[in-house]
Each structure stands twice: as structure tokens, then as C-alpha cells.
């Protein structure tokens, strides 16, 4: 590249700047084009992922609507926006599903949970986590049944003091070599149920008497 017979205009600062600018423009054009082509399929993939995870915590029998239709946006306990997906049968809200997060050993554990109208847990699943493979990853349903131990529980049953891992005097098993991970999940689920309790009036209302959009 360091050719001796290089033409002199190449040594000018303008050429260098123009070259960089040209490549930056070219790169930007390519990226815009790539984004246009892929954004449709990517959005569709994410939608499918979301439906798949919602279906894991809300059984098909209790709703006849499309779960992704008309979600509610509510302010969560920490002031954050929470999107709540509703299972509707006829005109009654039969269940809710929303995401919660726990502070795991290696960063946040993202969890989706389904709650029945009556406040019982329909299901809890871990969506994403960075816990230690072989120790903390037993929170995944593919590896261990532990996460199913929440099914059917509610606030007050077990009593509040038992919403903890056994090491902390609660009733949930911890894993050998990993206490922080299950503790984080238990706390997150408990927070999720408290969120339900605090907002259930608003969340379970049948759209304030206005006619309900039926899922087709």
C-alpha cells in the first residue's frame, strides 16, 4: 500500500477525510438496508417467543382471547412500567401474566409468571439468566422441577414468613452450592404476587364496563 509512486492528491487531508466519510456513508447505507430487510422477521420472531413463553404460564383452557392483544401498562412497585398480558374468557379476566426480575448471583434473572384471578400462581418460568451452569441453572424447567414448586401457591399460603428458601427459614429448597439463585427467584415471585395483590382491582376489571374486544 505504501506505494512510492502514489499520486500526490492522496496525501491531502481532504482526500483522507473524504475517504473516511465515503466509507462511513457506505456503511450507514448498508446497515439501513439490512435493518429494513430484517426488522420484519426479527419482530415476528420476538412476537413468537413472547407468545411461547406466555403459553407456558397460562394454560389454554382458561382463555379464549389472543394473549398478546390489548396488554395493560401499569406502574410497578419500583416505579417501572410493567406490561401485563391478560387471559380473558368470555368477558372475565381469568388470569394475568407479567415479567419480574430477581437479583441473581450473576446479574438479573428474568422471570415470567402467570397468576390466576384468585391470586394463585399458574406457573413460573425463567426467561433469561446468567447463573452458574450446573449449580444455579436448576431454575430452568428443562433441568429441574424446582420451578414448578410455585404452582398453586399464593400470598398467605404458605404464610408470608415461609416465602423464602429453607436456609432462611422458609419452605423452598435451595440447591447444593447455590442459595443466592433460588432466593432471588423466590423473592421475585413473592414481589410479583404482591404486585398482583396491590393492583388487582385495576388489572382484573372488565375494561370498566365498556364493551370488550373479543379475541377472534
Amino acid at each position, binding site marked *: *500500500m*505504501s506505494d512510492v509512486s*502514489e499520486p500526490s492528491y*492522496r*496525501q491531502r487531508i481532504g*482526500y*483522507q477525510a473524504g*475517504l*473516511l466519510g465515503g*466509507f*462511513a456513508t457506505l*456503511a450507514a447505507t*448498508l*446497515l439501513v438496508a*439490512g*435493518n429494513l*430487510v*430484517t426488522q*420484519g*422477521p*426479527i419482530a415476528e*420472531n420476538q412476537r413468537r*417467543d413472547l407468545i411461547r413463553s406466555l403459553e407456558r404460564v397460562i394454560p389454554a383452557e382458561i382463555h379464549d382471547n389472543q394473549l398478546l392483544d390489548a396488554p395493560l401498562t401499569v406502574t410497578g412497585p419500583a416505579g417501572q412500567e410493567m406490561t401485563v398480558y391478560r387471559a380473558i374468557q368470555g368477558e372475565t379476566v381469568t388470569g394475568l401474566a407479567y415479567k419480574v426480575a430477581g437479583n441473581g448471583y450473576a446479574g438479573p434473572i428474568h422471570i415470567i409468571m402467570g397468576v390466576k384471578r384468585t391470586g394463585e400462581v399458574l406457573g413460573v418460568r425463567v426467561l433469561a439468566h446468567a447463573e*452458574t*451452569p*450446573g*449449580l444455579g441453572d436448576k431454575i430452568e424447567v428443562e433441568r429441574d422441577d424446582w420451578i414448578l414448586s410455585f404452582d398453586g401457591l399464593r400470598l398467605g399460603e404458605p404464610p408470608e414468613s415461609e416465602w423464602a428458601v429453607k436456609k432462611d427459614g422458609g419452605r423452598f429448597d435451595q440447591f447444593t452450592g447455590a442459595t443466592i439463585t433460588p432466593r432471588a427467584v423466590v423473592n421475585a415471585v413473592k414481589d410479583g404476587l404482591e404486585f398482583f395483590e396491590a393492583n388487582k382491582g385495576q388489572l382484573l376489571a372488565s375494561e370498566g364496563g365498556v364493551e370488550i374486544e373479543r379475541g377472534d
Partner: protein
Amino acid sequence: MSADYKRITKDGIWDNNVVFSQLLALCPLLAVTGTATNGLGMGLASIAVMVAAGFAVALFRGIITPQVRIPVFILIIATLVTLVDMFMSAWLHDLHKVLGLFIPLIVTNCAILGRAETFSSRNGLLPSMTDGLMMGLGFTLALVALGAFREVLGSGTLFANAALLLGDAFSFMELTLIPEYRGFLLMILPPGGFIALGFILAAKRVIDRKLTERKGLAEADAPAAATG
């Protein structure tokens, strides 16, 4: 500049292998090789980027001046990696969920910048693309070898979830070598990557020495020492 494709091939896959000889690209290498399938996916993505980068750099080598070549190369590589990332997210979604975190790491794969600098900017289109392909294949070989080594010892399987990457037709590749294996956690974790890499590097040196001895050459360590 005459292109010696045989030399390029041999260099890329063995003599001047990105990992085994140049010891480059260790960051993506150690991060993804918990299983052979992840390694293969990362390798294929890297091949795509390396071939395309070789093409682009060789194409523009006439107008790029030495003063601004590094930013231009990085811009080209970063653009290509971002495109690969988007395309994988759109059409290889399940694999992208596994590898997604590591795809941007391809940018930090100094092997690509290194080849742009030392090879593509001095050679024509076809030799540059061949070099990218062979270097990429060599990198893939290293990824799969290390991934297989760690997966067999760590989980007792080989090419688990290969169907996710290559389609259902390749589910025959998914082997459980050691049934009822409880797992050897260390090999899956980062330290296992370093340990396995050490063994593989040592094995390559031994093989090289044997090959040189057979040829009756004196300088046993020539290929490794020249680039290390």
C-alpha cells in the same frame, strides 16, 4: 503478485492457524466453546465475515491510503458483523438466542483485522477471499475441536442441539457419548477452556514436530516460532 492457493490453504488451516499458531481470537474462542455446536455456529459466522472482509478490503485496496486504513478496515468489519448479526436474528433465530451475545465479539476478533492488514490489502480479490475462507476454516476447526473436547468431558455429549443450527436433517450428529454422565462442570466453565486450549496447543506442537522430523528437516519449530 502471484497467488499460491495451496500455500494459502495450508497456511490458513494449519501452519498459520488463527488460534493454534497465531494465538489470536481467543476471546470469542473461549467464550463460545462450551459445546461443539456453538463453536461450529461461531465458526460459520466468522467465515462469512472473513470472506466478505477479504473481498471488501481487496476491492478497495487501491483507494485506501495507509494513513486511514485502520479506521476504514474496522468500519468495514464492524458493518459486516452487524449485518451478520441482523441476518442471524432474522433467519437463524434459535441459534442467535444462543450465540447472539457473542456475535458482536467477532469485531474484536483481531484475526480479521490482521488478515485485512497483512493479506487482503496487498492481494487481489480471489486470493483475499480464499485467504478469508481458509483462515475462517482454520478458526472453525479450532472452535469445533475445542468445543468437542470440552463438551465430551464436561457434559458427555457431542454436537448437542446441532439440529438447531443445521436443520433437523442433521440431528444424527447429536451424540450422547457417556450416558448417565453427571457432568464435569470445570470443563464447561472458562477455566476449562484455558485448560483444554493448552492441551490442544501442545498436541499441535507435537504433531508439527513429528511431521518435521519425518521430512528430515532440522528447524522443528519454524512454523510456530515464525508467527508466535
